[in-house]
């Protein structure tokens, strides 16, 4: 009994170190975003060359994107709660809903980029535009990777059911998905709302 408890304990400790490592990855990713934000802010000074972003953006569209991402964050939380209650089918259902909401977000963003480029605000018009597409695009790319990860997670849950491993992976995915929504708060505030003021 004691040996089993010891092994269990040791296992959990190793898991904690793994999760801490993933947490550090997320924090370094924050620093990547910080440098992109800094670049964006520097290139978007009031009298920057090139067309102003202001006349191209539609805030109600951005609000829609924001709500999709926020809702997907909430549904992911629900799938974690279902995981605690050991209900694999429910976990998968919430994950699928999270995927759909996240995919709506990415779809809207891609559509927005295409729209901007058609209207003449494309990547190469100015340094400010490059910084805009790099910052928002990097966030969108992260969300796309998160979507792939959700698919992988759904497949894993179908094969391995709810085990210690799948639980730990769900925690990683949760941290990542939540982190993306936190970055988005600053994207919509600094990029979209500040552009309009």
């Amino acid at each position, binding site marked *: 009994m004691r040996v089993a408890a010891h092994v269990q304990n040791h296992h959990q400790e190793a898991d904690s170190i793994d999760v*801490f490592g993933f947490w550090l990855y997320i*924090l370094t990713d924050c620093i990547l975003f*910080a440098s992109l934000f800094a670049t964006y802010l520097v290139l978007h000074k009031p009298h920057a060359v090139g067309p102003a972003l202001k006349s191209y953006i539609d805030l109600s569209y951005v609000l829609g994107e924001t709500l999709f991402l*926020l809702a997907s964050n909430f549904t992911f939380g629900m799938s974690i709660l279902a995981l605690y209650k050991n209900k694999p089918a429910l976990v998968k259902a919430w994950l699928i809903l999270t995927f759909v909401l996240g995919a709506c977000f990415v779809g809207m963003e891609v559509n927005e980029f295409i729209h901007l480029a058609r209207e003449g605000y494309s990547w190469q018009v100015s340094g400010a535009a490059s910084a805009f597409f790099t910052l928002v695009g990097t966030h969108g790319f992260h969300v796309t990777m998160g979507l792939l990860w959700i698919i992988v997670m759904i497949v894993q849950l179908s094969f391995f059911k709810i085990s210690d491993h799948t639980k730990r992976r769900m*925690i990683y995915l949760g941290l990542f998905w939540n982190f993306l929504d936190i970055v988005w*708060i600053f994207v919509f505030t600094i990029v979209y709302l500040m552009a309009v003021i």
Partner: protein
Amino acid sequence: MSEPDFGTGKKKFNVYVIGLVLCLVLTLIAFWAVMPPKYSPTITFSLIFIAAILQFLVQVVCFLRLNAATEQSRINLMSFLFTVVVLVAVVAGSLWIMWSLSYNMMH
């Protein structure tokens, strides 16, 4: 048996719902303030930034569930705070340097 949370905090349904409602309200306040801009730029600017920082805190507390309850979660929290310091240094530092550069070029 309680679920291991690896210091990432236990998720709770009530806390999640409260977090969602607060985030929604703060998001709507921020968008409402600029659609169209209702006050002077300084006030609008402060308003959207306060809303963003509050929403950031709400997400960290209600969704990420950062806390200082266990050794592991304290390590997570400390590394998180350290990152915030680095973030502020990178962003504020870049702006400061570029602003001072621009000021010296123009005067």
